[in-house]
């Protein structure tokens, strides 16, 4: 187990994981994992993306995980590409082809590999090879790069494209696709294209000359990625905000959410400036801290703008007080929480679903917020858009609970679809509408859905103004310390949360092929590995379960029914404290004891093997004590 790579789970695998072809002379096709170890800050990302894209262009699904340190330059980093023609491209612990380019990690890297792994080894690291059960191709990178790249300064960057060429030959990736991918990758820097192409070619050439064909794993052309997009979740979220009509975005830099803000900045500059005047129809503000960022969002929401921020764990902690203000004064606001590993600073460059419970109840006192939980870039796009609408509709804080895995990795995804509905502006009364009614009570439940009406500052009508305060108020927004005003308002807010339950994205259910009394629930980025696990359990273990993907909190009636209808339900979470289970158990005690937890919290993206192991262990103990 190559633990130091971060490729293992907290529990050791006890089951065979990769379906390793037993017959070695029939290569396994389109089912493998490539891992490239380099040093942070050496620009290997471009090469790795070229490698990834060239496979994609051959029509074969891939998933990528970039495992980088919280450091700017010099520490080890690993880029993993999982190729799987069934579409199971979530994290997988073991590697089929390893590219070793980094001295700092190479000893541990090599020691951790499974026997029989193919290794592309930088000749300069040859001294690190201390075992003979690997299939090693020692490549003289330094010499090769010297040949293609006369400029010594550029060699550190260009050398990476050489291993792309080598890997292409070893695995059967077509060189034309590599070249096309290079063109795409360097579209903004045309000068770099030729140099990189020749580097790739040099690697390929060397490989063809020195590496005998292997019969373990191969990539072959398919037709499975047509129309798909390959994009980071954060970029998709940013696009969602843009199409959601965002007007004010305030943020403070923090990994892994900064790239969302940066993508938004780029997108908006292109698409959201007034074509006539060139002026901005939005404000993006880098605030001085998260308190200010959230303050700006709340202020903007109050004044009538669609406003959002993006942050990660430490940020939501700092936003807690203002989150409660948004909840209680009923001001629309959106927080995109790109979750990283906490508590505290935690692992800023590792993924987690550890903020679920925190976000749901963020702030002191009785607060419950609405959480949307995207599982892929398409949903990151949609839910970021929906969040802005829902915040207006419900007049409250809505979270989008993304995570580092989704946000900062490139995912193969269905293409985005343009919104079909106009922007939801919620219950806002204009001066004209105020004329029609005899009374405007800011916090009154007029429609029975517990959502009150509001007016925007600047509305020229004597009935429009009201006073917004985080302190107790009556339904006309007047300060009140009366017990019945307080309790009544808080009860209405609870009812509003019930309205939210009916408006959030519905859960998705996939029934097992055979009737079963067992259910499995996952959310967010646990979806793909969990479905892979279920598929594998069905095939290899004849074990079947119905599957529900939770896409929001509060949980919809459908979700609760799903649990009611199964004897036991395994809820997969990437946190230690079974945070969503805690929420479900608290709100639906009658099904509390049906929920069992599958937990994964070591910072790695979840993998199917972890789900399978824990599930089988739990099922075994279930059988023992019926």
């Amino acid at each position, binding site marked *: 187990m190559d633990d130091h790579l971060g490729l293992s789970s907290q529990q050791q695998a006890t089951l065979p994981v990769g379906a390793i072809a037993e017959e070695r002379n029939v290569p396994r096709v389109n089912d493998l994992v490539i891992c490239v170890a380099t040093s942070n800050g050496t620009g290997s990302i471009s090469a790795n993306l070229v490698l990834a894209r060239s496979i994609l262009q051959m029509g074969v699904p891939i998933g990528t995980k970039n495992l980088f340190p919280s450091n700017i330059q010099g520490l080890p980093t690993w880029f993993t590409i999982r190729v799987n023609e069934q579409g199971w491209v979530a994290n997988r612990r073991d590697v089929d082809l390893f590219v070793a380019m980094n001295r700092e990690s190479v000893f541990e890297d090599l020691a951790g590999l499974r026997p029989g792994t193919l290794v592309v080894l930088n000749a300069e690291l040859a001294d690190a090879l201390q075992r003979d059960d690997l299939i090693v191709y020692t490549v003289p990178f330094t010499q090769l790069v010297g040949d293609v790249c006369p400029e010594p300064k550029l060699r550190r960057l260009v050398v990476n494209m050489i291993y792309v060429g080598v890997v292409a030959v070893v695995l059967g990736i077509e060189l034309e696709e590599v070249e096309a991918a290079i063109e795409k990758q360097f579209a903004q820097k045309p000068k770099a294209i030729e140099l990189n192409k020749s580097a790739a070619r040099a690697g390929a050439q060397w490989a063809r000359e020195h590496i005998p064909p292997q019969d373990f794993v191969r990539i072959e052309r398919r037709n499975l990625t047509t*129309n798909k*997009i*390959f*994009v980071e979740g954060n*970029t998709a979220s940013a*696009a969602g905000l843009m*199409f*959601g*009509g*965002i*007007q*004010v975005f*305030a943020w403070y830099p923090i990994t892994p959410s900064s790239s969302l803000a940066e993508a938004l900045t780029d997108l908006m500059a292109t*698409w*959201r400036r007034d074509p006539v*005047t060139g*002026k*901005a*129809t939005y*404000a993006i*503000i880098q*605030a*001085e*801290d998260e*308190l*200010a*960022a959230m*303050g*700006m969002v*709340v*202020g*903007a929401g*109050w*004044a*009538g*703008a*669609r*406003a959002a921020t993006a942050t990660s764990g430490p940020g939501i902690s700092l936003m807690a*007080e*203002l989150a409660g203000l948004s909840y209680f004064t009923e001001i629309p606001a959106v927080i995109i929480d790109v979750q990283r590993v906490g508590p505290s600073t935690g692992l800023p460059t590792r993924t987690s679903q550890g903020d679920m419970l925190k976000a749901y109840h963020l702030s002191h006192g009785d607060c419950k917020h609405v959480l949307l939980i995207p599982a892929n870039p398409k949903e990151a796009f949609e839910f970021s858009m929906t969040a802005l609408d829902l915040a207006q509709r419900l007049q409250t804080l809505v979270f989008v609970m993304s995570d580092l895995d989704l946000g900062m990795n490139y995912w193969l995804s269905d*293409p*985005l679809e*343009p*919104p079909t509905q*106009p*922007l939801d502006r919620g219950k806002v009364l204009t001066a004209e509408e105020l004329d029609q009614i005899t009374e405007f009570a800011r916090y009154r439940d007029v429609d029975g859905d517990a959502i009150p009406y509001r007016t*925007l*500052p*600047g*509305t*020229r009508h*004597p009935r*429009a*103004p009201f*006073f*917004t*305060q*985080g*302190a107790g108020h009556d339904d006309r927004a007047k*300060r009140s310390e009366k017990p019945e005003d307080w309790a009544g308002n808080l009860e209405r807010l609870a009812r509003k949360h019930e309205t939210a339950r009916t408006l959030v994205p519905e859960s998705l259910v996939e029934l097992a092929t055979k009737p079963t009394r067992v259910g499995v629930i996952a959310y967010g980025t646990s979806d793909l590995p969990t479905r892979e696990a279920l598929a594998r359990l069905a095939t290899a273990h004849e074990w079947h379960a119905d599957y529900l993907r939770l896409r929001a909190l509060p949980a919809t009636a459908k979700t609760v029914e799903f649990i009611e209808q199964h004897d036991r339900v395994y809820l997969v979470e990437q946190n230690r404290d079974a945070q969503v289970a805690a929420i479900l158990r608290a709100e639906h005690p009658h099904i509390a004891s049906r929920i069992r937890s599958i937990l994964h919290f070591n910072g790695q993206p979840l993998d199917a093997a972890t789900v399978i192991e824990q599930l089988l262990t739990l099922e075994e103990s279930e059988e023992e004590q019926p």
Partner: protein
Amino acid sequence: MSTQQPAPTRSPATNRIGYEQNVYKGATSTLCAGCGHDSITAQLVRALWECNVDPYGIAKMSGIGCSSKTTAYFASLSHGFNGVHGRAAAIATGSFVANRKLLHVAVSGDGDTASIGLGNFLHMVRRNVPIVYVIENNGVYGLTKGQFSATADKGSTLKDGLRNDLEPVDCCALAIEMGCEYVARSFSGDVKQLVALLKGAIAHRGTAVIDVVSPCVTFNNHEGSTKSLKFAREHEEPLHEIGFVPYYEEIRVDYEPGTVQEIILHDGSRLVLKKLGNDYDPTSREAALVLLEQARREKHFITGLIYRAPEPSPAFDEQLELVETPLAHLPDEFLRPNPEVVEQLNQLWR
């Protein structure tokens, strides 16, 4: 203070946009009788009225404190936002960018601004967000019953004998250091000066900070407090006599040359400063910093316009290159790119 300012027009029953002064009032105050904050509210009412501000077009922002409550006590035709402690600056910034056409008036306490909200306050100043930011400075936490604030006098004591060993924070000096282009200090009891300074602030485009000593009659009005009514009254040293001339009025009084300095504001209105003995030039940052440092050292309570930038810099909305229409009023077609853009993005990401 005697006056040499433009002959005051007899207060008409309505202002130029047709409203009576009453229209600018708010709910009845629940502050202690005699609280300085109530005088400031009264001056704000007058300034808004006299400046012909659209009574529907004000965004009243505050944090938490006795001072912050006062946003309920003026301009009842406008929306007010009594947010959370220390974040008025941030919330007002967000509100301003959402609707730059509203006149943003923030009222805040010394606890709010100089303690918990100091960082956010200074960063709002740095961004030059167009906000009239009034600090109702009583050297004390009124609403929580009298603890020292960060502007408490060094050496002052609480009832239980606790002594404050720290120098007071000077919000004016800090604001100037952060690039504020309209900085004034006044006293809640100096009605005329305060109204003029508020009007100047309303006409200024950019952050305007007015630090107003506002006695807390309940917790900090004792003998020896420099924030007491008595002390402020007896020790106020105005830098100048100050008058406000709206853009639509001519100055109707002649001055001896050299006795008066005119500060022209964003909309063409002017502040007319009549010198009083000293020869202070409020358009020099250096002079302003030196003035405040000397006042601190010599424990002088100087009031007046401390600094106004000779050439104002772009306000926050200009920096952001915002469209003319307030963002909050933009229709869908400005807020959502065409559906084809989705396909363009898909293409880009393939």
